[in-house]
C-alpha cells in the first residue's frame, strides 16, 4: 500500500524502460547479434571443411570481384526484377481499375484473385513445377489441344523457356498483391476530383497523370519498393522450379548465396556475399526513397 502510494506520488520514470528491456534484448539477440557476428565471420577464414578460423582481412571481399558466378547471379536477379516488377505493377493497376466500380460478385472475385498471394511461395513454386511438367503437366496438355500435336516443352530445363516460366509464376503469385494495395489506394481517391476532371474535359490519361497518380503515389511507391526488394531476394519460386538450373542459368543472388553457404560450406565467403547484397540494397533503397519523395 505504501509502495503504491509512493509510486503514484513519485513515479519511477525509469520503470518504462525496464518494461521494454525483454523486447530490446530479444531484438538484439535475434536481429543485431547475427548481423554483427556474420560481419565478423566475413573477415575470417571459416569454412565447414577446415579447422582454420584465422583472420583473413579483406580476402573474402577481394574474391567477390573476380567471382564471375556471383556477378552472373546478380545479373539474373536484375533481369527477373526489371521484367516482373513493371508487369506486376501495370497488371495490378489495370485490375484495380477494373474492380473499382461496384459490380455483382465483386467481393468473391477479389477474394479469389488474392489467393495466389496467400499461398507460400515454395508451395506455389512446387505446384507450378508439376503444372509445367513436360510429360504429365496440364500446361503442355492444354497447349497440345491448341497445337493439334503433343507438346513436350521442357519448361524448367529449356534455356529459352526457363525465364518466361519463372517470371510467369512470379507475376502470377504477386500481381494480386499490387492489385490489392492499388485497389485500396484508388478507392481513396476523392471521386469528386475525377468527376470534376471529366467535366473539365480531361481524358483518362490526363486524369490519371495529373489527379489519380499524385494521390496514389505514396502507396504505389511503397508497393514498388516492397515488391522490388522481394524480387531482389527471390528464392523460393526458383528453388522449387529450377533450383537455379539449367546449370547456373537461373541462379539468382539468393540461390547462389544459399549454395555457397550450404552446398560449398564457404561460411566466411557467404557472409561476404550477404554483406555485399546488404550494401547494394541499402544504396538502392535510400536512393529510391529519396527519388520517390517518400522521405518528405
Amino acid at each position, binding site marked *: 500500500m505504501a509502495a503504491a502510494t509512493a509510486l503514484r506520488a513519485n513515479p519511477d520514470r525509469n520503470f518504462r524502460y525496464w518494461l521494454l528491456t525483454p523486447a530490446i534484448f530479444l531484438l538484439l539477440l535475434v536481429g543485431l547479434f547475427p548481423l554483427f557476428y556474420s560481419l565478423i565471420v566475413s573477415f575470417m577464414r571459416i569454412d565447414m571443411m577446415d579447422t582454420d578460423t584465422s583472420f583473413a582481412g579483406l580476402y573474402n571481399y577481394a574474391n567477390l570481384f573476380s567471382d564471375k558466378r556471383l556477378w552472373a547471379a546478380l545479373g539474373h536477379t536484375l533481369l527477373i526484377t526489371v521484367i516482373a516488377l513493371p508487369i506486376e505493377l501495370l497488371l495490378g493497376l489495370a485490375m484495380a481499375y477494373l474492380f473499382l466500380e461496384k459490380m455483382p460478385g465483386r467481393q468473391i472475385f477479389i477474394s479469389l484473385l488474392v489467393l495466389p498471394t496467400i499461398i507460400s511461395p515454395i508451395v506455389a513454386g512446387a505446384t507450378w513445377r508439376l503444372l509445367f511438367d513436360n510429360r504429365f503437366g496440364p500446361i503442355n496438355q492444354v497447349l497440345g489441344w491448341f497445337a493439334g500435336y503433343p507438346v513436350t516443352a521442357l519448361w524448367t530445363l529449356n534455356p529459352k523457356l526457363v525465364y518466361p516460366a519463372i517470371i510467369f509464376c512470379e507475376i502470377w503469385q504477386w500481381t494480386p498483391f499490387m492489385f490489392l494495395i492499388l485497389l485500396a489506394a484508388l478507392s481513396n481517391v*476523392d471521386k469528386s476530383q475525377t468527376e470534376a*476532371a*471529366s*467535366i*473539365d474535359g*480531361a481524358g483518362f490519361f*490526363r486524369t490519371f497523370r*495529373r489527379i489519380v497518380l499524385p*494521390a496514389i503515389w505514396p502507396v504505389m511507391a511503397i508497393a514498388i519498393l516492397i515488391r522490388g526488394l522481394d524480387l531482389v531476394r527471390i528464392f523460393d519460386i526458383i528453388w522449387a522450379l529450377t533450383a537455379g538450373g539449367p546449370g547456373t542459368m537461373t541462379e539468382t543472388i539468393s540461390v547462389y548465396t544459399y549454395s555457397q553457404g550450404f552446398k560449398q560450406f564457404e561460411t566466411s565467403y557467404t557472409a561476404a556475399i550477404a554483406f555485399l547484397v546488404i550494401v547494394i540494397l541499402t544504396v538502392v533503397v535510400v536512393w529510391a526513397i529519396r527519388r520517390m519523395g517518400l522521405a518528405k
Partner: protein
Amino acid sequence: MSDLKITGLHKYYGSFHAVKGIDLEVPSGEFTVLVGPSGCGKSTLLRTIAGLEETSEGTVEIGNKDVTWARPRDRDIAMVFQNYALYPYMNVFENIAFGLRARKFADAEINKRVHNAADMLGIGPLLKRLPRELSGGQRQRVAIGRAIVRDARLFLFDEPLSNLDAQLRDDMRVEIKRLHQELGRTMIYVTHDQIEAMTLADRIVLLRDGRIEQLGSPLDLFERPANLFVASFLGSPKMNFVPATLDGNTAILSDGTKLTLAGKRNGKAKQAVILGIRPQHIALSGKRVAIGHAQVKVTVELVQPTGSRVQVAFPLGGKSVVAELESRDVSKPGGKISIDIDMARAIVIDPQTEKVI
C-alpha cells in the same frame, strides 16, 4: 430558346427509384434552383444532367442537342461541387486552367482567362497557392473560378455553400447572384436550404421523393403553394397549420374561433380542412380591421426576439401558432394581445389530398 430540356427522366439505382419522371425546361439565362429535403433526388437529377450518372429513362437536351448518352466533357457544362473538388496537387492557377489545358487552349488565352476569372472573384493574389493553403471561402471561389473560366453553356452547382459557415455563406450567396447577373448564363443550383432557394432563384423547382412538387418563381411558391408540403417547406419560421371546419366562407377552429376567409375557396360545406397561415401574415392589431383581415385575442406563450423582428408563439385552435411581429410589439410572455390575420393570404388545405383548395 431553352438551354436545358429534360423529358420523362427516370433514374434507378438497382431497385431504388431515385428520380421518378421529371420534365423540366430551363430557358436561356435563367437561374433555376432545385430544392427539397435530403433524399428527394435533387443531387441525382443534377448529376444526371452533368452526365456523372447514367440516365435510366428519358432524355436530356442541352442547347437543343440530345446529350442523354454524351460524356460529361461533351456537354458544354461546368460544375461546382459541394466539397469544392479542387485538385490538391496543383496551385490555384493550374486548378482554374486545368479545363482549358485539357481543351488545348493556347497559353496566352489561358493566362488571360484565368486572370480574368481570378479578378472577378477576388482571388488574384492566391494564384500561386495550393488548395490546402486556402480557407473554405477561398476554396469555394477557386471552384467557382474553375467553372466560369470555361464559359460553358450551363453552370451546375451542387450545394456549393453547405460546407461554409453562416457568415461566409451569406457573402458567397451574394457573390453567386452577382456572377449570374454579370455572366447572364443559365445556372442550375441544388440546395436543401430554402433561404438560398428563395434568394437566388429566378425559378424554384421543389422536389420531393423524386418528383416535382411545384415549380415557379420564389414568390409564387411562397404565396401560392400547391400543397401542404410546398407550404411547409418554404418560409422561415414555418407556416402555421391549424385544423378547422369550413362553414361557407368561414373557418371554425376547434376552440370555436371563427375566421372569415377572404376570396373564393372551393371547399365543400362542413368540410374538415387545414388552415395555413404564414407567421409574416400576422400583425398586432391596429385601430381598424382592414378588409379581408381577421382579429383574434390570444395569450402569448413564448417570445423569441431575432433583432429586427420578434417571433411570438400562442395557442390558437388547439395548436401553437407562431407570428412574426415588430420587435417592439411584444417583449414578455403571459400577456394578452390582439392580433390581425391577413386572411386573403391564408391557404386552405384538404387534409385528404394535402392539396390547396
